[in-house]
């Protein structure tokens, strides 16, 4: 019979003491806000002076109805879908090919790794500053394209603003996917490549039949991370395309949340957008895990 303290607190109760600051932190900035977001989204919630007693009536699904019927919100979800359609395949293909190549080279390996990772560790604000000039109307990209330059230019063209953001984010985040694939490649058994070579498989064939299935769990992770990045977009539409422009063509859901919740003072509808995004991200994560790891 174990002592009572051990049964209640566990074998090493000191662990509770060690983990408490982190547990309190998670409760305060994650669990409680998540609950509060749901609560706010079901009430007529507005900002009031601190300490003021105000009535915030329960409104059921009214905020959700508002959000789903709002063309600006619908647009932002379509935009993020467009972002994912460009970003996900580009990220998966480029990072797997680059990781495989990086894995095979011996010379300059450190330099090459650093080159591909460095956009990932750099602030979006600093990198957006450069892209503003590269893709500006009189920028270098248009200078190279000459008469082929799009009109209106990239960042103010409603058909091109979102693709440019998707390209920017792919470039910025690619290093992290390469890193995940490089780690996964170390776990693909050498024997599989050797037996493929014995069977006379070409290099492309062994890439397709050995490498691609071998790193499947990393692919799941890359897809999930890309989804989370897409759901999170804010700095790029705020700064690169000057507030989700032109005319909302590159507005992201988080940007619309900021406009509605903070700028226009409607935290209730903004919270409803947040809850919808959380549900969508969870659904996409679960589905991609199911689809990519079905065997």
């Amino acid at each position: 019979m174990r002592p009572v303290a051990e049964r209640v607190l566990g074998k090493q109760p000191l662990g509770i003491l060690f983990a408490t600051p982190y547990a309190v932190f998670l409760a305060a900035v994650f669990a409680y806000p998540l609950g509060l977001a749901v609560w706010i989204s079901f009430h007529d919630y507005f900002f009031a002076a601190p300490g003021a007693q105000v009535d915030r009536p329960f409104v059921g699904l009214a905020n959700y109805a508002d959000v789903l019927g709002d063309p600006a919100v619908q647009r932002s979800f379509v935009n993020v879908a467009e972002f994912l359609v460009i970003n996900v395949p580009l990220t998966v293909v480029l990072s797997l090919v680059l990781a495989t190549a990086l894995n095979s080279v011996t010379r300059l390996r450190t330099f090459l790794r650093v080159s591909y990772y460095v956009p990932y560790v750099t602030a979006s604000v600093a990198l957006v500053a450069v892209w503003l000039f590269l893709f500006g109307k009189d920028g270098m990209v248009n200078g190279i394209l000459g008469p082929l330059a799009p009109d209106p230019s990239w960042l103010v063209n409603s058909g091109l603003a979102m693709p440019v953001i998707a390209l920017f984010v792919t470039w910025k985040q690619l290093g992290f996917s390469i890193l995940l694939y490089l780690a996964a490649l170390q776990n693909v058994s050498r024997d599989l490549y050797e037996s493929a070579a014995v069977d006379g498989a070409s290099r492309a064939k062994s890439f397709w039949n050995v490498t691609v299935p071998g790193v499947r769990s990393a692919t799941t992770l890359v897809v999930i991370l890309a989804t989370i990045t897409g759901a999170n977009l804010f700095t790029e539409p705020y700064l690169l395309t000057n507030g989700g422009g032109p005319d909302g063509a590159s507005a992201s859901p988080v940007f619309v949340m900021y406009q509605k919740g903070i700028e226009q003072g409607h935290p209730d509808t903004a919270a409803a957008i947040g809850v919808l995004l959380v549900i969508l991200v969870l659904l996409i994560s679960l589905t991609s895990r199911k689809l990519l790891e079905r065997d």
Partner: protein
Amino acid sequence: MRGGRRVWSTLALLVGAAVFLFPFYYMVVGSLQAKPDTSVRGAIPTGGLTLHNYADINSRVDLVQSLVNSGIFTGGVLVMTMLFGVLAGYALARLHFRGRGVLFAVMLLVQIVPFQLLIIPIYVLIVRTYGLADSYLGMIAPFAINSAAVFVFRQFFLQLPDDLFSAAALDGAGELRILWSVALPLVRPAMLTVLLITFIGPWNEFLWPFLVTKNQSLQPLAVTLANYISNIAGRATNPAGAILAGAVVLAAPAVALFVAFQKHFTGSELSSGVKG
């Protein structure tokens, strides 16, 4: 044959690396040019380089104060993560206590539900309920302990051999002593990995400090520079040069830290931080 392939791989990777690094090169060159030159030739300056743009951005925004603010924001998060992150990671990896399973499950959920989606309730809580707008505390609070760092610490503590701990326990060492003199010295490489991934969070963060600080003297550099880009860029003589100079100052510390510690930025150490 194999060697030939390797050369082609290296060459292709070098071309890719040049494409990846070009915006960084352009950032530095553009920040040193007296007059904006956005033509292709402008990317290869033949002279007329100057530090004037750095003086220009410094006269338009308080560069030093912004750097100090970024430093306090980042430093606060680093201290909290190093201290409480190690303790939590150690407890999750090595100690059996009530609630461990629940804590770990919540940690996994935190990795999937990003901070930005909770921005409204966190804003309501920190700015409206606790009145922490325009304060370092309000800036640091939502970032205080980096969950990815806790995962990395947990992973490192898990990899230590069990014998080590049972031997120390047999010698009569208490849990605290085992953590301090046995486990911590062995996870020193993890400290560098965690330092790097924790640093780039708050240093590069824009949305939260942008929301929580209206007072310019408290804004970190990412916010100061973004405000400069969106509001007053039109008034500088060479707005491109001044903005790019600011971008170099913002990018440099993270890039320098990364280049110095790149050895500790590897998939085997970090992937635990995202998949748990």
